[in-house]
């Protein structure tokens, strides 16, 4: 694609940019700062604040000849516009001259600042934005220092307006730039903020229920050029200059958003450094400059008083604190005894290094490594996943994206945003799900299948299965796609269903050859941040976890809580001779364990995670770990040493080097490679906060894609097994399908006080017709008998859901991981 380039002069610089670029962006590219308030490089320009006024001249063209008139010295004659123009709305044109340093421009800026300040309270000392405030900075840089307006006539309005429980609005500070309103409308399409009234009375309102109902709400505080929008979480937490930023990766979902932990000492934590806030860190290939509210507000778990800080061992039936020395020696002895009877069950929250050391430890004993997940198909994402050069941000016209059995908006909000934007850039989006999801609105083809029949739907998309006519048109749309990315998830599916689905998706990609090159491949919408990393290292879920745990002599559980997840697993685990648990908290599994080893949380240690897009990214220590905890990889290494193995446990970087030597997918990678950062556009987080908001610049590394396991044309090694089908017909019982919600009752969310109100509860949603059939009514409490255990739920009607099944979120206290047939009865009121 060739873009028409335009050459123009900005002050003393000459710059060549693509046609259609705004003057303000062109200037930024050559380092000329044009101050802005309402303009943001990720939003449409509106020219509302007038701060970007500059002098613009254009070459004079002779009307008769159509040629540029030349001066005596041969340079083109420039006609300056009589008035100043807004640099944020004016596109560049050939031969343009932009003057940003003249007295006329300086006067305009001075007056715009003066005008904006007529209604600004200037309460910078108590404002959370003070110190990183565009208005403050631009006033210092361009303001006059005095005002001709009468101070007493300043607007006096509400200073403490909660827009929901996460974000506060200070109406006095608002300068009416509309960045938040436009962000909510244009970028994330949650139009829950808007203007109300006009002129000086203009104010920002929300009327949604709950207030400011958007999972991206925190981003508005980053782009607000004043302190009008602040988060309830950080409110008065610290001054921006007092905090130390530490780069990290959000470990709440497989997207792997680049973040920064802002850290400061805190008196109530007896002077220890604590995380004060989480900010996005720019990575245009992953999260651009945004993060979701879960990533922003869920960081409180690591400072919880419930953290384990001492190894616990079962002595006379009680878990008793013991020394690390004793704990490790006991564990090592048990591992040695166990030999092949060792079963290591790892969770997807572990880092690459943890998983590698645990694998080495387990393999040396001849034991089994298992991944604790309800979602299969990683053997396919490993081979057909995304490769170097892939960037969802570069998909557009001519490309296609298929999202199947996933509610991306809830499971991986940033992927939802990126897929939505790709669709808006022209990519063909095909969404397949048994129920409607937020992504349908942007899909060229939003297709429905019968609950449980996701794999069949993909087969239908390939023409291998009888499907409605709509599938035919979707198939045609897919046929000519230059690039194709397929996202598959576990919405309404369990382990068996997702495995079958992944395999069919793999078939789809192989059939059309959409793999082995950038921007093509299969992406699993996993439940944890590093599930993909685990698959890459050969971890896989057990086909029969109950059986595996029952047979285990020693079960080593790391970041996995089977007891809390499912009663059947709890029973099975009781059969193991010795259970070792590596955990941050005393989970249900830890309570039943024989030995509990306390581990460090992600902000307390080094490591790397592999995102669902197969991008390995580093996180760095932000706060000191509490005394007594150790990173998982160190624990595994120390156990290994006692068993005569030579495992690296001194530093995560060294473990990673071993991993790179051992696994072809990680070959050639190192911490150095992961920490390289390249110049990105838009420029954010430097001196010019006014431009991109308070998002941090990325200096600590943007991560690297793993090496391709397959080359284009090479067939995957895994052989297509016969597709097991998952339960689809519940007979006389109610078919209950699991789905994932962003704010679930997972072990980490519960420590964030603010999020409590948004957390999903055990609500059984179903079509009124289905409800009627089972004698259920809106709002009633019902009892579900699922897999032999009883659970209580609240019934909710939802016309949008197809009849014949009911939907229940995962991790809301009901052990539901795969479609299940449930006996349902209305509970009697006491």
């Amino acid at each position, binding site marked *: 694609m060739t873009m028409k380039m335009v050459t123009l002069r900005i002050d003393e610089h000459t710059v060549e940019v693509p046609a259609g670029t705004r003057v303000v962006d062109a200037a930024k590219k050559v380092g000329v700062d044009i101050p802005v308030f309402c303009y943001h490089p990720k939003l449409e320009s509106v020219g509302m604040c007038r701060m970007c006024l500059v002098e613009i001249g254009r070459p004079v063209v002779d009307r008769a000849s159509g040629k540029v008139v030349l001066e005596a010295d041969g340079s083109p004659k420039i006609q300056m516009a009589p008035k100043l123009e807004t640099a944020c709305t004016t596109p560049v044109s050939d031969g343009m001259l932009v003057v940003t340093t003249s007295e006329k421009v300086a006067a305009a800026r001075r007056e715009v600042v003066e005008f904006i300040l007529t209604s600004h309270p200037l309460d910078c000392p108590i404002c959370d934005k003070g110190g990183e405030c565009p208005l403050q900075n631009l006033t210092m840089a361009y303001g006059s220092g005095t005002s001709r307006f009468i101070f007493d006539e300043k607007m006096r309005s509400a200073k403490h307006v909660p827009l929901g429980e996460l974000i506060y609005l200070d109406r006095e500070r608002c300068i009416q730039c509309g960045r938040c309103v436009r962000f909510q409308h244009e970028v994330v399409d949650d139009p829950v903020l*808007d*203007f109300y009234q006009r002129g000086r009375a203009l104010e920002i309102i929300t009327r949604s229920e709950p207030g400011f109902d958007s999972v991206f709400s925190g981003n508005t505080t980053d782009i607000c050029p004043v302190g009008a929008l602040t988060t309830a979480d950080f409110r008065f937490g610290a001054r921006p200059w007092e905090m130390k930023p530490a780069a990290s990766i959000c470990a709440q979902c497989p997207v792997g958003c680049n973040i920064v932990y802002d850290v400061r000492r805190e008196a109530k934590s007896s002077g220890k450094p604590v995380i004060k806030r989480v900010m996005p860190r720019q990575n245009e290939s992953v999260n651009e400059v945004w993060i979701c509210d879960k990533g922003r507000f869920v960081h409180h778990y690591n400072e919880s008083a419930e953290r384990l800080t001492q190894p616990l061992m079962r002595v006379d039936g009680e878990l008793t604190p013991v020394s690390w020395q004793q704990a490790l020696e006991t564990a090592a002895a048990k591992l040695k005894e166990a030999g092949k009877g060792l079963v290591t069950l790892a969770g997807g929250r572990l880092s690459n290094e943890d998983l590698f050391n645990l694998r080495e430890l387990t393999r040396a004993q001849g034991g089994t490594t298992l991944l604790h997940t309800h979602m299969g198909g990683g053997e396919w994402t490993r081979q057909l996943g995304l490769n170097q050069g892939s960037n969802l941000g570069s998909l557009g016209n001519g490309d296609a994206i298929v999202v199947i059995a996933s509610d991306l908006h809830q499971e991986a909000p940033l992927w939802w945003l990126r897929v939505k934007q790709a669709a808006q850039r022209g990519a063909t989006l095909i969404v397949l799900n048994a129920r409607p999801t937020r992504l349908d609105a942007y899909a060229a083809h939003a297709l429905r299948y019968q609950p449980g029949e996701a794999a069949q739907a993909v087969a239908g998309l390939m023409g291998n299965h009888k499907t409605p006519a709509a599938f035919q048109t979707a198939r045609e749309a897919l046929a000519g796609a230059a690039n194709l990315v397929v996202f598959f998830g576990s919405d309404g599916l369990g382990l068996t269903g997702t495995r079958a689905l992944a395999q069919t998706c793999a078939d789809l990609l192989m059939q059309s050859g959409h793999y082995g090159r950038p921007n093509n491949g299969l992406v699993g919408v996993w439940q944890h941040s590093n599930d993909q990393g685990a698959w890459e290292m050969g971890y896989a879920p057990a086909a029969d976890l109950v059986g595996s745990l029952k047979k285990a002599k020693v079960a080593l559980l790391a970041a996995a809580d089977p007891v809390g997840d499912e009663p059947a697993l709890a029973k099975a685990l009781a059969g193991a001779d010795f259970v070792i648990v590596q955990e941050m908290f005393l989970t249900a599994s830890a309570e039943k364990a024989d030995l509990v080893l306390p581990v460090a949380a992600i902000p307390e240690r080094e490591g790397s995670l592999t995102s669902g897009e197969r991008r390995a990214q580093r996180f760095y220590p932000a706060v000191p770990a509490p005394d007594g905890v150790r990173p998982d990889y160190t624990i595994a290494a120390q156990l290994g040493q006692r068993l005569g193995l030579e495992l690296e446990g001194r530093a995560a970087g060294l473990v990673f080097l071993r991993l790179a030597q051992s696994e072809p997918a990680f070959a050639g990678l190192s911490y150095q490679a992961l920490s390289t950062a390249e110049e990105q556009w838009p420029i954010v987080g430097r001196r010019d906060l006014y431009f991109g908001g308070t998002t941090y610049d990325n200096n600590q590394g943007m991560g690297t894609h793993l090496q391709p396991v397959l080359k284009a044309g090479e067939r995957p090694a895994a052989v297509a097994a016969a597709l097991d089908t998952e339960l689809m017909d519940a007979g006389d019982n109610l078919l209950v399908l699991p789905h994932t919600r962003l704010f679930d009752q997972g072990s980490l969310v519960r420590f964030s006080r603010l999020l409590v109100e948004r957390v999903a509860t055990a609500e059984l949603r179903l079509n009124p017709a289905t409800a009627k059939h089972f004698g259920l009514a809106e709002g009633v409490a019902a009892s579900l008998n699922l897999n032999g255990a009883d659970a209580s739920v609240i019934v909710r009607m939802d016309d949008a859901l197809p009849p014949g099944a009911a939907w229940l979120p995962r991790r809301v206290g009901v052990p539901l991981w795969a479609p299940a047939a449930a006996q349902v009865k209305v509970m009697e009121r006491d």
Partner: protein
Amino acid sequence: MNELQKRYPEDVAAILKKYPPEFRRSAIMPLLYLAQRQDGHVSGRSVTDIAELTGLSTTDVTSVVGFYTLFHAEAGGRYRIQVCTDLPCALRGADDFLALLQKELGISVGETTPDGMFTIEEVKCLAACHRAPMFQVQGDGDITYHEHQTVESAMQVLKGLRQQAQKSGKEAA
């Protein structure tokens, strides 16, 4: 079927028919007028109903109500006295006019007279700068302009409105 549709089934259908489905959001203005017809203001319930009919968020509908001075989110008097105080009007004495009017009626901007007849509102440009001070009266499904006003002439207009209201009240009785 929501409240608004139940109350004005034909009107809502007629309005929606005017706009193709993809431009349904354009129906917001006539629907707001319709919602305001009976009570003189757009209730929260009507906002929700219109949001549902047009596919907009309740926040967006509220925003439109807030932008236009002829839509009202709050209940007011039978007649809304809307005085323009933008710059040209202010230069011609609209500020003083408004102050005197408030004194005369014993209420300030945004308030309603105890008999529920008049609400004073300050509005943006009414495009009659050259005939300021001026105001418009919104009420009884009508909007009337009153230009070149003094407080005396304005009170005369209000007196007329009172009589008109009484008359229509008697007729109704």
